[in-house]
């Protein structure tokens, strides 16, 4: 079973990202589960969401304490939340930032990876919405999921032009991370 934790801020679409990841994993033929760390939702407040991906039906209902992968949607969270908490030594932490991985001094053995998803979002979508883009980056960085499945999940959830642009941005992020 692979466990993913997503850190974001209220309004950044972390819960939607977790959900889309579960939809995409299911399309890949896996069982999946996505849920938020049910807070009292406020825009801007730190938010955590989780996704599990497994070959068998998932029965476990607890939160994720030792994630294989961590996605950080907003680098300013690193100062207020221990985003690397419980990260597996062979795991990966994917941060949305313009800076390089060595900029971040996280207390973890997990591999830190970065992608400027905000830039991609502004260039392609025209708005700084990064949740779907980070899923493309996740697919590229981990190989856990097919990028086509992410794209399908995105266009199904956001029909029309918005979905198309998001899908294009997903692919861009995927290709950049795959090259790393």
């Amino acid at each position, binding site marked *: 079973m692979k466990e993913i934790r997503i850190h974001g801020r209220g309004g950044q679409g972390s819960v939607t990202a977790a959900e889309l990841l579960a*939809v995409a994993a299911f399309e890949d033929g896996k069982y999946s589960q996505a849920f938020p760390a049910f807070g009292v939702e406020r825009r801007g407040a730190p938010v955590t969401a989780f996704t599990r991906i497994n070959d068998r039906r998932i*029965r476990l209902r*607890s939160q994720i304490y030792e994630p294989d992968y961590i996605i950080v949607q907003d680098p300013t969270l690193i100062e207020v939340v221990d985003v690397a908490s419980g990260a597996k030594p062979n795991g990966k932490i994917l941060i949305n930032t313009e800076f390089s991985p060595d900029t971040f001094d996280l207390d973890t053995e997990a591999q830190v990876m970065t992608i400027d998803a905000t830039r991609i979002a502004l260039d392609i979508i025209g708005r700084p919405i990064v949740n779907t883009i980070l899923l493309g980056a996740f697919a590229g960085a981990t190989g856990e999921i097919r990028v086509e499945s992410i794209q399908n999940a995105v266009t199904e959830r956001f029909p029309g032009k918005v979905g198309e642009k998001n899908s294009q941005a997903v692919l861009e992020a995927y290709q950049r991370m795959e090259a790393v």
Partner: protein
Amino acid sequence: MTGKMTVVEGSYAVAHAVKICRPNVISAYPITPQTHIVEDLSQFMADGEIPNCEYINVESEFSAISTLVGASAVGARTYSSTTSQGLELMHEVLFNVSGMRLPIVMTVANRAVSAPINIWNDHQDSISQRDTGWMQLYAEDPQEAADMTAQAYRVAEDKDIMLPAMVCMDGFILSHVYEPVILLEQELTDEYLPGFEPEHILDPAKPKTFGAFADPSTYTEFRYLQQKGMDAALEKIENAADDFNKIFGRYYGGLIDTYEAEDAEILLFAMGSVVGTIKDVIDRARTEGVKVGLVKVRAFRPFPVEAIRKVVKDASVIVTLDKNISLGLNEGALCTEVKSCLYNTDINIPVIGFLLGHGGRDIPRRNIRMIIDKAKQVIRSGVTIESEYADLRGELI
């Protein structure tokens, strides 16, 4: 399993199941974490997807359930959903519903009660309605919560039962999780669930009195008959699960379900979503040679006394896990009920209770493991503590 799975939110799976059950009147008041269920139903209504149905907006949960009393009495299939303070606000009317034998089905997205205010999951809300004469069924996952809705209507509307039912699903943990679910199939459901045809209906053309006065000369018999309805529901709940399995190919147990229980020395008892986590822990413990099993209690009312007596008799210790507490007794309801159903029998197995997961406190696998370790100690040296919290933060008190 048959059918096509799609990834949906637990609330959607339940709202969809309600739609497929062809309700005639829905009345509910939104409250976290039930909100998504009623939002989805409102959307179905707006899209014209629930034929012959009226969604009545109200200003409180008290009004929602009162509205359904009238609607059910005229012969409508009725639905509501609530949680926590909303359910407690319904309290008075819940007795009227069961006393008038109105088979309303209601989803409870289980949540803690105030004060202190807390929107997260535990079972205190529905357990506090234990004696209102409603059947109470607890679901393990979104699939079961959805399917249980159809099962609940089938049992509730049975002419020998005519009792309301709460389908309890853990708030957030099940209501807000996205996972693959087979949405209830319309054609199969129509085959499984006949239309609601009550013996008595309110009709101005043929007037009758519902909810009449009963003085001391008849009241006792009313209550006795309600209990008889509950007694009869025991078998009907089993039948409803079996018939569901025949038509849909999905089964979650009848009154109870068991997991690795046959040779278990340690037998855990639990209700709701924690059952899934426990199954994972049992698999791990079994690989280490720990003989541990699980009894999942699906029906809390009527309480499956005989089924439990049958299934526990070879265990060395029984361990209950409760997301509720009876303050003043320091026990959860499952603990108390399981103990009481073993008394006056030749079964003499120690029972210990653990309180956990209150107010949404997460239940990681290590907590279940710790509970199993404590149960091992009971086998070795007997009961020292009958009931205690499994996840108390000592540093705060």
